[in-house]
């Protein structure tokens, strides 16, 4: 019943709009087309100015209202320069936005149809064309150049003292692997993947793998550069680090890298934000399937001392895999839950 009423209301609204349009058309015929048109133009001109003023007020108001709701200071050194770039982009585009909007609506108002005013036909002006081509071209080139500089820096080879962390996306969580004492990640092969004992498919014959350990949250050292080696087990994911102002796609088969230097520990951020529950977060920034919204991992940024204490407590995946395999071989037989993996395998064969 309520559905029927809703449809009826919509139909009635359409009829009312149609009738108003029809009535105004009859009025314009009675009044004479030219006069009606001029009056319409006047009304439209005023409405455009009203739209301009209200719109600019709205822009300012939204900015004031939502100022405190954005993320706050960037928590990495690279993030600072990215914030800087965004501010410069906003200054330049903001000035252009305000000037062009004012001109657009003001001209529409000023040059509306009037008695005795004839449009001036202005076909071409080379000087003007050059000006409005060259100035935006220079501005955009500068903006793109700044962006490329940051991009090349973030994706370039990390400093020598950087620690290495591997992060692999899968539907729907992140697998984090540390290289262990030797500082080098062991090789891996997709056929070794086993959700129970070997989630990233480490090759146990490779000695570099013996000390690699998996972690449920990513621990980083404050002030120390970290190189992330990013991969995916199934579909395209994206390591989104909003607090560090970074993100990078996790593409199956193509490892990507980026490096950052965390500036504040988690404790410092709790004080800075006044939020005792503050947590650095990795979110998946690329649509990856039905669990995309829940694909999250935490990052703990701490001092070197705390980090060393945490590392000392970790058990290598090799140890875990071989400890669990001896008493209970059952889980190893169990096929992987990840159906994508099976699908890929099916296509390969």
């Amino acid at each position, binding site marked *: 019943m309520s559905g029927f009423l809703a449809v009826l209301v919509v139909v009635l609204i359409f009829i009312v709009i149609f009738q108003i349009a029809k009535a105004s058309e009859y009025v314009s015929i009675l009044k004479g087309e030219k006069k009606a048109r001029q009056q319409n133009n006047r009304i439209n001109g005023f409405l455009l100015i009203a739209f301009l003023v209200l719109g600019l007020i709205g822009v300012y108001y939204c900015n004031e209202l939502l100022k405190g709701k954005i993320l706050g200071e960037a928590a990495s050194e690279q993030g600072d320069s990215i914030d800087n770039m965004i501010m410069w982009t906003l200054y330049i585009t903001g000035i252009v936005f305000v000037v062009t909007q004012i001109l657009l609506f003001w001209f529409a108002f000023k040059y509306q149809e009037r008695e005795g005013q004839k449009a001036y036909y202005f*076909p071409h002006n080379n000087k003007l064309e050059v000006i409005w081509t060259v100035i935006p071209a220079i501005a955009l080139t500068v903006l793109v150049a700044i962006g490329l500089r940051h991009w090349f820096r973030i994706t370039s080879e990390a400093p020598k003292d950087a620690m290495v962390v591997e992060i692999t996306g899968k*539907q729907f969580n992140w697998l984090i692997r540390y290289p262990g004492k030797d500082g080098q990640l062991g090789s*891996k092969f997709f056929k070794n993947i086993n959700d129970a004992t070997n989630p990233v498919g480490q090759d146990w014959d490779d000695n570099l793998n013996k000390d690699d350990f998996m972690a449920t949250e990513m621990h980083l050292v404050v002030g120390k550069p970290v190189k992330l080696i990013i991969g995916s087990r*199934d579909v395209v994911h994206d390591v989104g680090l909003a607090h560090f102002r970074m993100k990078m796609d996790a593409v199956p088969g193509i490892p990507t890298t980026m490096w950052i230097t965390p500036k504040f520990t988690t404790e410092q951020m709790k004080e800075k934000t006044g939020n005792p529950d503050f947590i650095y977060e990795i979110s998946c920034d690329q649509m990856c399937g039905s669990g995309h919204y829940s694909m999250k991992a935490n990052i703990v940024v701490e001092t070197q001392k705390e980090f060393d204490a945490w590392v000392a407590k970790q058990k290598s995946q090799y140890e875990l895999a071989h400890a669990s395999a001896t008493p209970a071989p059952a889980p190893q037989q169990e096929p992987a839950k990840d159906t*994508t993996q099976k699908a890929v395998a099916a296509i390969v064969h």
Partner: protein
Amino acid sequence: MSNEATLHSHQHEVTHGTVAHDDHGNGHHEHHEDSFISKYVFSMDHKMIAKQFLITGIIWAIIGAAFSVIFRLQLAFPDTSFPILETLLGHWAKGGRITPEAYYALVTMHGTILVFFVLTAGLSGTFSNLLIPLQVGARDMASPFMNMLSYWFFFLASLVMIASLFVQTGPASGGWTSYPPLSALGDASIGSKIGMDLWLTSMALFVVSQLLGGLNYIYYPEHAYQGYEHDQDTFDHLVFLLHCRTGCIILPCTAVRLHPAADGPSCRHQLLPERAVRSR
């Protein structure tokens, strides 16, 4: 044709159509009796085709906007249950909450509809068809037949896309960019099953439609370069419209073709894992 003449002939037509219900509304062209089918359905008149694009585009815009209202309702009030959603979406919104699969499907279809069916077909199909012949002072598009085909391929694409909304596993849900492998593997996402197949079929028809339309759009400017150089007036009108149109048409078409191409290597790498995954 001067600006003024264009404006007036257009207004003339509008009043004819809506007020007087004159059967000879398109009477600028040579008078010959058209049947209902050839005048309103399989029409080769650029103005009628523009109207067909406009109406189809508006219907798509309403559907696309409704989708965005539905998923934004969930986004804005994630803790609230809206029983009307269950009425509308059935088991896709059990208990008045949209399931993740349905949410992503709505977002994907909203993007697809707005980018392709409203902005590309609805706007460029309408304005290019209506304005280009008027601005060059031609009687119609270079190939009215191709123009008609352009609309009907778009219509077919629309039908397939609408059908994909009603399949059991739901429409495509991997985002309007449809990156593989997510969009390629039915096991990775429920929307990548028959929904994605229909999405691709619809896009293929859509690309054909835009190609046929686009050939018509660029025909006259080509000739303007060759024959109308002395007519600065005509040419300036065209340059403005054509800059916009070219961008509108070429960008989405290349986007559809290039995305799978650009992502192809990643897909192939996955299928040739010895080489790829064993990198470290």
